[in-house]
């Protein structure tokens, strides 16, 4: 009897401990969700830790690169792999040339980067991605990320070797923009969501009454010191205008200039903050 009692006690104690650990882990998870929603300090630290530990693993598994080609040379399918890698390299080189030649990067200091990971896929599409440049490459949070076609998003957090980018169209990215040749002020993305917009489209709302036409170009308004968005980067074109139906300001949808589903090479714009005071001028009739 005593022996049986001892066995039961020993068998139960680790089980209770394990159960307690699971409950504690679940409670800690829920607590962190709440802390992250209210903008507490802990989650940022965890994200940086995750980027430091797991970022290099993602960089190592990134598409293309001469090292990957070398490792595959002894394989039976060497020729097929080389051909595929060569195609990727050619595409990347073309994308890089397009990026450096695009109006968004003219005169700007650009850090070219490759997309190495995207967030766990879901029905909301691509809203976060990881690029293979980080703080050691001079990248910091709230930098503009562009591709050859236009605006991609902004840098949200930075690890030593990788950075996380919030993609335009996600819930956390709202951009101040100018629309059309008149330069009407508007917001794109975030809460500026037009009803009935399709996945891949962006919602646009003018800040006050004005004219919105299909085909109008939408460009970034720009932020102080170019962070998070530099001015004049192409966001997309107006694809539909909604009936005003009593609203003060017109709304519409924007077809983004960048197809994030095919994105491989991007650039992080490193704009320096203004360091000299702007000279004052005297106005007068010409």
């Amino acid at each position, binding site marked *: 009897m005593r022996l049986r009692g001892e066995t039961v006690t020993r068998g139960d104690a680790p089980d209770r401990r394990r159960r307690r650990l699971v409950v504690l882990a679940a409670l800690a998870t829920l607590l962190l969700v709440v802390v992250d929603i209210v903008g507490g300090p802990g989650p940022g630290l*965890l994200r940086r830790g995750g980027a430091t530990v797991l970022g290099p693993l993602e960089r190592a598994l990134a598409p293309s690169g001469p090292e990957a080609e070398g490792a595959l040379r002894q394989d039976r399918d060497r020729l097929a792999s080389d051909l595929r890698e060569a195609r990727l390299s050619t595409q990347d080189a073309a994308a890089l040339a397009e990026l450096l030649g695009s109006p968004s990067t003219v005169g700007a200091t650009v850090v070219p980067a490759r997309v190495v*990971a995207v967030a766990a896929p879901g029905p*909301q599409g691509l809203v976060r991605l990881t690029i293979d440049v980080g703080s050691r490459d001079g990248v910091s949070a709230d930098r503009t990320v562009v591709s050859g076609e236009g605006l991609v998003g902004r840098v949200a957090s930075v690890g030593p070797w990788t950075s996380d980018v919030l993609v335009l169209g996600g*819930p956390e990215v709202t951009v101040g923009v100018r629309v059309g040749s008149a330069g009407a002020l508007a917001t794109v993305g975030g809460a500026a969501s037009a009803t009935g917009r399709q996945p891949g489209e962006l919602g646009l709302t003018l800040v006050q009454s004005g004219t919105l036409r299909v085909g109008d170009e939408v460009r970034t308004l720009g932020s102080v010191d170019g962070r998070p968005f530099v001015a004049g980067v192409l966001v997309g074109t107006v694809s539909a205008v909604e009936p005003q139906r009593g609203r003060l300001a017109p709304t519409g949808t924007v077809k983004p200039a960048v197809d994030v589903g095919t994105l491989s090479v991007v650039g992080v714009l490193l704009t320096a903050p203004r360091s000299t005071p702007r000279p004052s001028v005297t106005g007068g009739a010409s």
Partner: protein
Amino acid sequence: MTPAGVVLRGVLLLVGGVLGVTLAARHLAPLPDLVLVIVASAALASGPRAGFTTGLLGGWLLDLLPPGSAVLGTQAVLYAVCGLLVGLAARPGKAPLVWIVTVIAVACCGLEAGRALLALAQGVPVDAASSLGRVAATATAALVIVPLVDWAEQWSERRRFA
């Protein structure tokens, strides 16, 4: 779950998580949810508590693996709930493969529905067609991976006691 099963599923969670985010960067679609397959295999083999724990770990991995999730911990909660519910569907003894694949497909539908609700709550439009593709890909991957994991676990246990 045996110690070999714990180690094996831990390694597979890491591999599945890293492959998921890096293959998606190559714009391959639809990709199976490998983490869900491993979580479900643990839940079906060892019940709700193992499913919950494996789901919590797998979800945390996805939360922390760059670029992570918008709100830290949401994937952990989603996968833990999935693991718990799949564990409740576990049958004693060897379950038929059709049952396993069906349960995993239903779990994947639930996961996609949860993510869609989160996205809609944030005002982001959802793409139902891509979700259906992911459910089909996950169920197909489960057809191959779950029996392989079970076999590897049994084989390592046999070697351990041989």
